């Protein structure tokens, strides 16, 4: 049985102009020690689905799912108190903006020790020892001294290391990294990704990497789930996904990678992700898809089989018939 199992997860936000469906019938599995990447444009519901899992959505959100289990716990029926014992402990998350994700009024040492005290109940001396150990583990130089620093006294990369140290403080079974490198310099990005993958090796935790950077996906992930407008539209292990994408959106995303461009002009996907008011009746990608026909615009496709990466498309690409024809 997988570590994390989500079936038919939907999230709706109550807005002044009616309900907005940010996540639509998403299934997701993560195994122990696995790296899953969730990719998609801004507004495709990547973060929201994971925030729903963590229970971090604002009160305007309504979360529904057929199943949402983590490590044998049913998160749907669990009360808030029991859930708080898991969140931050076995299930941890780091965020996009390290500079604003740490509390400016407390030292980083205080913030990391707080997690150790709340979940593990460690004594004062033990907390300090473990905090230094964690800082060493995430590669913060001079850890004992850094514990008394405030977040504004450190760089973004260092703050993200603190965030990671705080997230792995209680040896989580699953770490969700929500665009952990987006706000960082390119050189620091690579360091943080290396750190995350090496921590995975050391601790055997599962890792969910939310990103919109296909380069990051290719380097780090083992399995990739592509989301578009709140739906999961394709999921494949990383090398087949890059070699034979089945959904036209995945293919278009890959074509837009500068590394893959053959022309002088970089191919782009015209238009934007549909919002609350321009949601198409049929396939959600149909307004931007170069293969779309009348059927695509009228009938929503259901996922194809597992052999086609569960692609939500009437006419999946790279099938054997297509290659034959």
């Amino acid at each position, binding site marked *: 049985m997988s570590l994390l199992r989500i079936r038919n997860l939907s999230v709706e936000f109550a807005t002044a102009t009616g309900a907005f469906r940010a996540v639509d019938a998403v299934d997701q599995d993560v195994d122990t020690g696995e790296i899953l990447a969730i990719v998609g444009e801004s507004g495709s519901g990547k973060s929201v689905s994971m925030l729903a899992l963590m229970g971090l959505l604002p009160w305007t959100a309504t979360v529904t799912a057929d199943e949402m289990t983590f490590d044998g716990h049913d998160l749907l029926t669990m009360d808030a108190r029991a859930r*708080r014992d898991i969140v931050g402990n076995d299930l941890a998350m780091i965020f996009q903006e390290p500079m604003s994700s740490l509390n400016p*009024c407390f030292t980083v040492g205080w913030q990391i020790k707080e997690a150790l005290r709340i979940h593990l109940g460690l004594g004062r001396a033990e907390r300090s020892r473990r905090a230094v150990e964690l800082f060493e583990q995430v590669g913060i130089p001079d850890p004992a001294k850094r514990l008394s620093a405030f977040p504004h006294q450190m760089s973004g990369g260092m703050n993200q290391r603190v965030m990671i140290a705080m997230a792995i403080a209680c040896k989580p079974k699953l770490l969700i990294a929500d665009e952990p490198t987006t706000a960082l310099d390119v050189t620091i990005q690579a360091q943080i990704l290396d750190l995350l993958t090496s921590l995975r090796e050391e601790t055997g935790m599962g890792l969910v990497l939310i990103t919109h950077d296909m380069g990051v996906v290719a380097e780090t992930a083992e399995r990739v789930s592509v989301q578009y407008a709140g739906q999961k539209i394709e999921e494949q292990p990383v090398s087949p996904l890059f070699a034979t994408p089945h959904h036209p959106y995945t293919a278009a995303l890959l074509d837009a990678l500068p590394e893959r461009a053959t022309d002088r002009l970089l191919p782009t996907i015209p238009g934007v992700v549909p919002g609350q008011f321009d949601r198409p009746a049929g396939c959600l990608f149909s307004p931007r898809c170069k293969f779309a026909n009348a059927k695509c615009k009228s009938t929503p496709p259901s996922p194809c089989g597992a052999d086609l990466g569960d692609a939500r498309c009437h006419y999946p690409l790279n099938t054997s018939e297509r290659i034959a024809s």
Partner: protein
Amino acid sequence: MLNYVLSRLLTFVPTFIGVTLISFAFIRVLPGDPIIVMAGERGLTQERYAELEQQFGFDRPIVVQFWEYLTGVLHGDLGNSFVTKKPVWDEFFALFPATLELSICAMIFAVALGLPAGVIAAVNRGKLYDRTLMSTALVGYSMPIFWWALLLIIVFSGNLQWTPVSGRIDLIYYFPDPTGFMLIDSLASGQKGAFASAVRHLILPTIVLGTIPLAVIARQTRSAMLEVLGEDYIRTARAKGLSPGRINGIHALRNALIPVITVIGLSVGTLLAGAILTETIFSWPGIGKWMVDSIFRRDYPVVQGGLLLIAVMVMVVNLTVDMLYGVINPKIRKR
């Protein structure tokens, strides 16, 4: 830190001179002549008037009068009251503990109720708690102090007879007052019931004086909390699995306190202004009542000196608040 305090103290100098000038001019701009007021209904002869004018120095040019006042102030001499002939300095510090005691109680009352009210309102944003607390705060803020005081007196002193109408303590108690703070002195005296009497005398003035700061603090805390609760680090705190009480009470409130401290500092000025009215209504023997009486008597030295000392108090409080920022907000702490 020492440099910071010194540089701030240096900025006191122009403020100090300005306040001296304003307090000097203010009382002289008011119509009425102190000598005529002193003479009362009997009046006095032309010769006696000229004599007194010369004695008080009113016959000399106003600039000279101001210069003499200013040099006096710089030597620590605020002059003597026209009425009691006693030094303003001594009178002020004999009465100031009463005002300070009332102001401290009012501030504690305002902070102790205002902070939790603001936090509760912010956490329950848009719900019944929030609406009730905030509309109550608005009513409290807009209520005229004298009307509110009279209302409380009618209900609690008049109808219910729970609290005394005026004064600091029942007249049956008499004891030495080394500190001037009735709560401390009554405890130290060891007389049975004296402390309880002092407390009962304090309740209504405290509520009346603390109402406006309470409303301001509650509303400011609410809006600061609302802003902080939307920050990324609050999401991080929730992702750590912390309880809502810990998130709101420690992670959010600590950040929300930064703007609230400013408001608390500014409220001290309001408090001293409010004290004048409150003390007059409750016959509280503090500097507020003393100042009002002196204005009616055209007691120039008292009004000038009192205003100056109050202004210095407010400046010192604001300096303290600025230094408190460093404690609360690590970003501006000197490294």
